């Protein structure tokens, strides 16, 4: 229903520089990763957009992630940090990132530096006729343990079967959303189901999603939280709620 409207609104053209872009990353246990990620992001955004902002959302990390993020925001004038007093989790942090981002395009990746934002570059022209562009990694090329690979495969398969749709590598955190998508869909999930929820809602509203291949790099520092039992449980609960229209 939003499709035609979306087309009309899409005045920015991807062949030139993007009009304006917000970048955000959730950061937890990333004191060593942020100093590698943010300078690279800054350089990349300077190349592809006239106006941009960088938002680091520090999710109550017990290490010095917050301090490192603050230092980076002093160094880069268009970067800012949001601190959570307590650890609210990945979904809630992502949700806040979307909430805080104000520009025409919204890009995100995780603070753990497992993706290279430069991999967007050859595929930015997909934004000509897509409302969302999302990276995907071949499951067998993911830089994670076999158990995580299996989890990821299962999650994707379940979503596709459960919702009778096709979405690729849902939780790949290298995506760009156009502003009008974010303005027209609601986001309810606070769990890691958020990625799936947003893609499913966007599909339902006839927004166009295009995928491009990316590399998943080995984590150099920090810890992952994705396979903790309570994280998985919350995600499954949100999925069931969403399926039955009560999320």
């Amino acid at each position, binding site marked *: *229903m*939003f499709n035609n409207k979306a087309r009309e609104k899409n*005045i*920015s053209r991807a062949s030139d520089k993007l*009009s*304006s872009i917000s970048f955000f990353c959730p950061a937890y246990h990333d004191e060593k990763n942020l100093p590698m990620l943010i300078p690279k992001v800054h350089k990349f955004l300077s190349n592809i957009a006239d*106006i941009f902002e960088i938002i680091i959302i520090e999710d109550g990390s017990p290490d010095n992630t917050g301090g490192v993020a603050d230092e980076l925001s002093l160094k880069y004038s268009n970067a800012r940090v949001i601190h959570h*007093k*307590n650890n609210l989790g990945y979904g809630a942090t992502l*949700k806040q990132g*979307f*909430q805080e981002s*104000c*520009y*025409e395009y919204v890009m995100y990746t995780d603070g753990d530096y497992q993706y290279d934002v430069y991999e967007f570059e050859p595929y930015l022209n997909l934004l000509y006729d897509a409302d969302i562009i999302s990276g995907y990694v071949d499951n067998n090329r993911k830089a994670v343990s076999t158990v995580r690979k299996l989890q990821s495969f299962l999650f994707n398969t379940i979503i596709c079967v459960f919702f009778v749709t096709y979405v690729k590598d849902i939780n790949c955190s290298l995506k760009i959303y156009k502003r009008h998508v974010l*303005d*027209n869909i*609601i*986001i*309810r999930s*606070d769990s890691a189901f958020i990625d799936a929820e947003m893609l499913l809602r966007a599909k339902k509203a006839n927004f166009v999603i295009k995928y491009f291949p990316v590399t998943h790099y080995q984590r150099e520092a920090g810890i992952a939280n994705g396979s903790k039992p309570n994280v998985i449980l919350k995600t499954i609960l949100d999925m069931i709620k969403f399926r039955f229209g009560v999320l």
Partner: protein
Amino acid sequence: MHINMIHINNKIVITGCGGMLGEAVYREFKNISDVYASDIDCNESWLDFLDVSLEQDVIDYLEKIKPDYIIHLAAKTDMEYCERNSDDAYFTNRDGVSYIVKYANKYSIPLVYISTAGIFDGKKDFYTENDRPNPLSIYGKSKYEGEIEAGKAYKSIIIRAGWMMGGGPKKDKKFVNKIIKQINTGAQKLNVVNDKFGTPCYTYNLAKSIYFLLNNEHYGIYHGTCDGDCSRYNFAIALVEYLGLKDKIYIEEVSSDFFKDSYFAPRPYSEKLINIKLKKIAPHLTKDWKIYLKEYTKRFNWIL
């Protein structure tokens, strides 16, 4: 751990949500609760029709939804229209509020009402939350009476806004878009008054303040403007600079008399507000108006 009062399953009714502030408030709340947005101009697919000046319609709408919170933005804000149609101004800006309050008190739910710097007479240099209102125009009078009505709610948050900026090319009905529209039609010289002073107010920022006050149950009267103040002339100079048009657009200082035929409603000399109360409880919430103006100019494609 901080517990959010406003929950994802809470129902929030936002009236007058099709306007420039409504856009920001809808965006702020749509992902954190169940939002029911309405307006008399249904310019978005997510808006219901509701004319708040019709008592039975308001009752029916609220009884059907049974909201947990109400954010009442609906108002007649065109000052010249209000001067010419005073009955209509009072029906919406005063009576509309009283219908909403009646419902809010029946179920003891919190109500947010947005008021204006226009309730003051402008004789003082700046106004705090405790200064005595003395409105000059029909708009100011009707909004002040609306404020008195809103104050009768058991749980009310009254926030006085300043010179509004926000909404972008599509929804901004105020100064920024008026100036940009002139530039877009080819004007190279703009006449801007230098004898009216006020405090700008950024809708996206005000929306955050509304959330903060509501979520933390800080009831009472607040000023919701940015920090700092300026004249219309100072504001226009900054706007043109941030648009990168400093060398192309000349701004001529004129007195209000210059526009007295088209803007005939009495406007206070000073509409400067300082937000002492909000600043005390949430110093992080507001910044200098220039920071927000700069952000605002970059946020949209104004096609200049």
